[in-house]
């Protein structure tokens, strides 16, 4: 498994300059096609919330799974200074033979947490995502939003300072998604996590992120980025969010139209 190597100099400093630094990253799956990722540079500061936007198939998931260590890039480097990143998939990806708590406990077990401690820690994490007392439920007894929250609790159980999220709320209805946005922003600000949040929903990106990166397709490149000046919490239907979302949508559409010509 390709765990990015840590630079000793960074490790020794009290606060590393970034949680993750991606440099000139490229990924080629098939030789005769344009690279899926091309010269990607991303730098995420500790505690920063970055949203990654892009059209379908532009390579967002590929980038995120490379950062998560689920593959080896063709070239370039990925330095994660905060240990193994936690990753949330587009689907909840819960293990259906385990209870909600069992899923969270497996992440703790993988970290080597003792049995008794696992129990209480899982309960604590579940109440953090507002699922107190629901730990004994099986996956099929939970709604889509609850499943995604168990997945979030499981990601938090990895106790990583870097949380990677791949369109985690895409399959949910708007009201549930709103509630989870609130939940996520609360957790992020309480725990000082760095987050890379992938979505193709522009408003969601502006609602959540401090910085929004726009990715182009074929080859996948970061084509533009925006700083979101507004403070949290902010509502997805607030005028500020709408205005910036409109501007970003304009660029996203232009980027997509490029391929239609």
């Amino acid at each position: 498994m390709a765990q990015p190597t840590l630079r000793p100099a960074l490790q020794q400093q009290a606060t590393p300059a970034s949680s993750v630094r991606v440099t000139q990253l490229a990924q080629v799956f098939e030789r005769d096609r344009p690279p899926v990722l091309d010269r990607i540079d991303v730098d995420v500061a500790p505690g920063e919330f970055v949203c990654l936007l892009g059209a379908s198939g532009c390579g967002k998931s590929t980038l995120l799974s490379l950062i998560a260590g689920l593959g080896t890039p063709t070239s370039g480097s990925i330095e994660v200074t905060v240990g193994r990143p936690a990753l949330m998939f587009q689907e909840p990806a819960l293990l259906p033979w385990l209870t909600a708590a069992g899923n969270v406990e497996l992440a703790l077990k993988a970290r080597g947490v003792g049995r008794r401690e696992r129990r209480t820690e899982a309960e604590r994490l579940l109440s953090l995502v507002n699922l107190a007392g629901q730990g004994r439920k099986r996956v099929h007894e939970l709604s889509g939003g609850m499943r995604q929250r168990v997945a979030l609790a499981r990601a938090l159980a990895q106790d990583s300072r870097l949380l990677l999220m791949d369109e985690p709320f895409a399959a949910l209805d708007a009201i549930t998604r709103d509630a989870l946005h609130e939940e996520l922003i609360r957790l992020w600000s309480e725990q000082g996590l760095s987050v890379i949040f992938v979505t193709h929903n522009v408003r969601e990106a502006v609602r959540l992120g401090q910085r929004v990166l726009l990715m182009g397709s074929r080859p996948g490149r970061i084509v533009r980025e925006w700083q979101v000046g507004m403070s949290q919490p902010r509502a997805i239907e607030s005028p500020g969010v709408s205005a910036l979302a409109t501007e970003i949508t304009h660029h996203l559409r232009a980027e997509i139209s490029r391929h239609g010509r």
Partner: protein
Amino acid sequence: MAVDDETLTTEDSRTFEAGLDALEAPTLSPRPGPGAVFLRSVLPPMVAVVAFIALWQLAYSTDLKPSYALPSPLDVLRTFDQTVRDGRAWDAISISVSRGALGFLASLAVGTMLGLAMWRSRWLRTAIGPFVSGLQSLPSVAWVPAAIIWFGLSDAAIYAVVLLGAVPSIANGLLAGFDQVPPLLDKVGRVLGLSTIGRIRHVLLPAALPGYLSGLKQGWAFSWRSLMAAELITYSPALGIGLGQQLNIGRELNAMDMVIASIFLILVVGVAIELLIFAPLERRVLRTRGLTH
């Protein structure tokens, strides 16, 4: 519904979220009570059995066939009762069931190892996969003559037939189980930082369990069928009298009551083992995963 986040307290949003959960969580239908189960699942087959016996009695009373060829239900019951009283039925059951169990356990070991090997080695799978699947549809009674030529009229011949009948199902069941494991779940194991062993133990094996179990169930059905085919043909005093041999004796004596009583026992024992061992196991595994109620 426009909710202005800035005016919401954490408490408000918690209540809001709990409300969503209450509305959205799937409502599972409660398990039916014993009365409902009786009316829905037990009564209809009972009615069918009674109707069948009534038809049989009618055929007997109207002399559709000479009575040695078509005994009355009561005759069969008497013969059956006789074999139970003098212990022949129990002997035959214990001989056949212990053979069946031993044959199944051997098939389980061999089939599981074969399945694992085929899963680990793509080459092996491509090489012998089609033959293993082909064997699954070959009626194992076809092996009986070969087994007798190789092993004589012996237990070894019977076990050979049982193994050839059951091993392919079990190996294929395990393979199907592994194939059904969604790649996403393996990624979850890697993201969580589980070791290879940990991923096999905590992700792969549990995920493959339903397919494996249905392979085992089918393996048992094939074991039992193969065993009866083998017992029916390999008759020798040294082998003792199992259910299949009892059936064969009935045929040689032209005793239809004994033949029917034996068929009945073979059916009941095969179904009982499936219902008492495999069905609850499978139901439990599926219910935990919400695949059935």
